[in-house]
């Protein structure tokens, strides 16, 4: 009995949640998963799930999976936000709010971790997968199986974070887990280990994707598409991929060093034995700052596509837009110290990084002006993607200005880690990243599903998010200047902050209403899809190649790989009334489905769980499993299948018939 217990490492019955809130969260998670399993069994869809989704290497499907998972995680991160607002609006003076201190700390740690890694990165990679191959006129990404593996590693990381809700606890050390708090001495539980390993696993997936999309864009553009003729979204993906490639190894190292401290008793960040906790802060932000630009640059790319399309004009200042993206990519590696101006560096170091931080605002400003110049004298159509964009322009500019303020070290000394900072970065991430990706989803949805989302509900959602955001974060700027620090779970009534916190709470509820409208929008649109289905390949009068395919897109993307001669290639095709290919179809070879990615990620998940709970046998099995899966996959011989030309012709003819019918 004893040896069995020791086989389970640190795992025992006490790992199950103790307090009501966590129990509630865990219960809803488990019930949700049970519901999915029941539905799949009832509708006899297991084989379909395995064949069509679990083993797919089609980037279009992988993109959809990323976005579905990311949106689910948005709900979880949003629930965390609601809890935090509820706590801070009510925990004043004698009252102590709805959460215990420890729960509150896990909630804000989970909120940040989930939103950045699993919502932001998930939506981003989702759009990469959906859009890049189409926009560059290619059938696939450079390394399809690697691509699938990246998704499943992301899912494995997500699974670990969610598992912490049911078995064990999550980190209470913030979304970046600074030592010494995150060291074993002050966080003896498994929370920080869950944080480390879910991010490590998902991070490897991200790194692989960065490499994948970089090679895809460099090597797989269609004939005639020079780099300077690419759609701007692809430029944003290219520059972002460079940042991912060079930033994520730093994260891998930093997480490993913390793990080595915790698990093998090393002394990287433990002060007593020659460690240096400041080195952690330095390294994590050397990754962390490029990370936030990684998140936002593709959103800028989305805006470039949207603004051009809905202004019926080609994007103003293409070259300077490209230059701005490249400048931001490089500069993003030169500013990271501004996250710890107050840690004690001298004035020379602080001044250098302060100046670099101010500099990086310039290329972003260039982009804002170029979008506005694009709109100027355009024939603007205010579809919901444009509403998201208008909200972005207004809010991002203001939030960005707050950032430039904090780039000045003496000002930062006053507002570092206050709610002013919190308001700033939420402005950047919500109005930049989230609005951008939500707008992108709305914009590109009809391409992959053959029908538009309900526009009216989409506009309600956008307005709720914009108004809700202003109410939720406007007060936080003021509170920060009044001296409120971040991560407070209680404050004295004498501060006079409560009213502003209540306003912020109302704001979050309005954002919640916006989310509700979005869920309703999906539900209603799908419910009404038979009526809405018009298969229109080009519902927004687009300018770039993805609109040159049928909607939904056939598995091979293009029956004949396009040849282009300028920017806005599809626009040019429309002007010259280039007829779609209707003869000379050829056989098309595509990669076969494979469970390799799923297996690698599954074993990685097991290994991660093993390290977290010190179940060493599981770690060994997981590690060997990953290795074996890779080796076995490498022995696979016939990894492609062919779609005969006749079938391609049939698919194309049917698609065209559908379009004219609707």
């Amino acid at each position, binding site marked *: 009995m004893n040896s069995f217990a020791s086989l389970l490492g640190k795992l025992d019955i006490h790992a199950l949640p103790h307090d009501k809130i966590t129990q509630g969260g865990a219960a809803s998670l488990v019930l949700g998963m049970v519901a999915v399993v029941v539905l799949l069994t009832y509708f006899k869809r297991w084989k379909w799930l395995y064949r069509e989704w679990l083993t797919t290497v089609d980037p279009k499907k992988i993109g959809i999976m990323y976005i579905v998972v990311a949106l689910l995680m948005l709900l979880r991160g949003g629930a965390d936000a609601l809890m935090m607002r509820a706590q801070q609006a009510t925990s004043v003076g004698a009252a102590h709010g709805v959460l215990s201190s420890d729960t509150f700390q896990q909630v804000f740690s989970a909120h940040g971790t989930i939103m950045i890694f699993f919502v932001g990165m998930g939506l981003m990679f989702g759009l990469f997968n959906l859009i890049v191959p189409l926009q560059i006129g290619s059938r696939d990404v450079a390394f399809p199986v690697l691509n699938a593996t990246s998704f499943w590693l992301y899912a494995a990381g997500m699974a670990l974070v969610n598992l912490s809700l049911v078995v064990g606890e999550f980190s209470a050390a913030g979304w970046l887990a600074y030592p010494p708090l995150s060291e074993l001495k002050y966080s003896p539980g498994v929370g920080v280990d869950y944080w480390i390993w879910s991010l490590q696993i998902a991070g490897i997936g991200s790194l692989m994707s960065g490499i994948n999309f970089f090679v895809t864009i460099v090597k797989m553009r269609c004939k005639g598409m020079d780099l300077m003729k690419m759609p701007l979204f692809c430029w944003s993906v290219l520059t972002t991929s460079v940042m991912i490639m060079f930033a994520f190894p730093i994260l891998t190292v930093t997480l*490993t060093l913390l793990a080595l401290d915790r698990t093998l008793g090393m*002394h990287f960040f433990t002060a007593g034995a020659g460690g240096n906790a400041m080195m952690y802060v330095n390294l994590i932000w050397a990754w962390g700052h490029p990370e936030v630009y990684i998140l936002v640059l593709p959103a800028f790319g989305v805006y470039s596509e949207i603004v051009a399309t809905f202004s019926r004009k080609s994007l103003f200042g293409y070259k300077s837009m490209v230059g701005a993206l490249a400048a931001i990519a490089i500069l993003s590696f030169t500013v990271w110290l501004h996250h710890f101006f107050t840690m004690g560096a001298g004035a020379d170091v602080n001044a250098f990084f302060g100046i670099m931080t101010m500099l990086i605002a310039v290329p972003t400003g260039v982009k804002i002006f170029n979008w506005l110049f694009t709109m100027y004298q355009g024939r603007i159509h205010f579809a919901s993607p444009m509403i998201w964009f208008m909200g972005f322009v207004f809010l991002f500019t203001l939030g960005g200005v707050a950032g430039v303020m904090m780039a000045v070290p003496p000002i930062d000394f006053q507002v570092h880690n206050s709610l002013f900072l919190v308001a700033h970065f939420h402005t950047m991430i919500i109005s930049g990243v989230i609005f951008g990706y939500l707008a992108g989803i709305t914009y590109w949805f009809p391409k992959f599903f053959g029908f538009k989302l309900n526009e009216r509900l989409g506009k309600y959602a956008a307005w709720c998010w914009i108004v809700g955001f202003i109410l939720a974060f406007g007060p936080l700027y003021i509170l920060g200047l009044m001296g409120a620090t971040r991560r407070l779970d209680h404050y004295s009534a004498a501060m006079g902050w409560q009213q502003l916190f209540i306003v912020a709470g109302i704001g979050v509820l309005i954002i919640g209403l916006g989310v509700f409208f979005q869920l309703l929008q999906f539900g209603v649109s799908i419910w009404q899809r038979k009526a809405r289905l018009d298969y229109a390949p080009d519902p927004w009068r687009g300018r770039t190649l993805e609109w040159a395919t049928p909607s939904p897109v056939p598995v091979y993307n293009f029956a004949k790989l396009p040849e282009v001669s300028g920017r806005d290639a599809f626009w040019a095709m429309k002007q010259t009334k280039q007829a779609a290919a209707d003869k000379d179809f050829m056989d098309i070879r595509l990669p076969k489905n494979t469970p390799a990615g799923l297996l690698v990620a599954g074993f990685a998940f097991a290994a991660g769980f093993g390290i977290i709970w010190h179940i060493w046998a599981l770690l060994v099995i997981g590690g060997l499993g990953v290795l074996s899966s890779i080796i076995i996959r490498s022995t696979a011989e016939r990894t492609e299948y062919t779609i005969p030309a006749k079938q391609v012709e049939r698919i194309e003819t049917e698609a065209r018939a559908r379009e004219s019918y609707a």
Partner: protein
Amino acid sequence: MEESAVVRPPSLKEERQEADSKTIFGFWVYIMTDCVLFASLFATYAVLHNNTVGGPGGKELFSLHYALTETLLLLTSSFTCGLAILAARARDKDKVLFWLGVTFLMGFGFLGLELHEFHSLAVSGNSWRRNGFLSAFFTLVGTHGLHITSGLIWMGTMMIRVAGSGLGRINVRRLTLLSLFWHFLDIVWIFIFTIVYLMGGAGV
């Protein structure tokens, strides 16, 4: 590409060359990211290398001639790996297996020397648990060692593959990737030798 009135699909040979070139480029890009990984470990080592908390430092603990032996062993294995690739181009299976085998043995020898050094440090009270300096040393050198181990596993499977199915296009491509990896690991070792052992041994 030549002009043609009708769009000509790429020939199978062209497609395969494109695919190979894409894969080899992708691997090169991965190696670039691995450089950043090692750079971060080097930076950590540089920051912590004096944090001995009164214990012995590099000057006391490192044997320079031992490190030189390791270095020459790995360097020679990088050379013999190159010879294996030349043999692969010439489609000479026996030569490929011979030179890969020599490379493998030298790599294995290198690993053995390294593990011996780690072991003697650990049992003499200078394990990774002692202080920041040793944590950084073991992690930097150990990460390189883990990469070498992966390379050896890869090399072993490649030798089995080549022995079994010969030097087809895919195997030659994979050997090219392996050789890129192996050369890269030798380059990283140059810097470990210089920054950790030589500078440590000189007491800098």
